[in-house]
């Protein structure tokens, strides 16, 4: 499960050994899982503008990913948001005033984005098959 995500795990914020969050707005894993569960009810046109429904297997995959992140001591995301294309996105605020976004676009498939103002930007796709 989410074997392709393992290499990017060091990029996520972790709780320091002293337990402090260094001023970063930290979410809550229970709330994260509750949000994911709530998004199971997001069927087609959930926003009244034609947004795609969020498939149950995508939610299942996102829930598995939560387990992986927690097992690696990753901080809970600041928020979990639904996507118009039938996706879900985890977002973390970073100590540098930037953000990390992990958008789950399919089962074990995601897009990772790191943005630090006046600093590095990184975009990675996780889990998509390589075509010839």
């Amino acid at each position, binding site marked *: 499960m989410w074997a392709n995500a393992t290499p990017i795990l060091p990029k996520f914020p972790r709780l320091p050994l002293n337990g402090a969050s260094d001023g970063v*707005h930290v979410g809550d894993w229970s709330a994260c899982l509750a949000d994911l569960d*709530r*998004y199971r*009810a*997001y*069927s087609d*046109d*959930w*926003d*009244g*503008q*034609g*947004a795609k429904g969020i498939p149950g297997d995508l939610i299942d995959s996102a829930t598995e990913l939560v387990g992986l992140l927690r097992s690696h001591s990753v901080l809970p995301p600041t*928020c979990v*948001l*639904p*996507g*118009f*294309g039938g996706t879900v*996105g985890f*977002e973390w605020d970073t100590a540098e005033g930037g*953000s990390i976004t992990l958008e789950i676009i399919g089962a074990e498939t995601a897009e990772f*984005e790191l*943005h630090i*103002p006046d600093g590095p*930007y990184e*975009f990675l796709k996780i889990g998509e098959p390589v075509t010839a």
Partner: protein
Amino acid sequence: MKDEDEPVTPDESVVRLVWGAFLRPGEPVPVQPVAFKPRDDETDGISVFRAACLNDPKDALAAMTPDKRARYAIAVIPVAELLALGLSVKPAKIDAVPGHAVIPELNITAVKSDRAWWKVLQLQLVELAAKNLIPPAEPPTDAS
């Protein structure tokens, strides 16, 4: 009220409808950047409404299905501020509501081709949205 056939002028404002779940009450910037992300079919740019063509900014909600209207916040953004970001507003009439327009630079193709640029722009847009934001009639709950 302006006729929607009149060109967009810098002294106008536009209305962007923001899904309630994309709000961050109490945060310094209370709007999530995703509120301005083009949908996969928005190849011409994201939708806005010209406030000058509406009696009230809330009239833009008529473009939504009735059971969802109360879930939307309304961000009112000066066109001059968008122009300062290098963006433009182009009329794109629809039947449901007068004054529909698009921001053509914020199309899905451009966003995917230059994600770093888009990320910076998103943060600027949410700051603009936060300056004049009308909360939804109903607080965010389940979608359906």
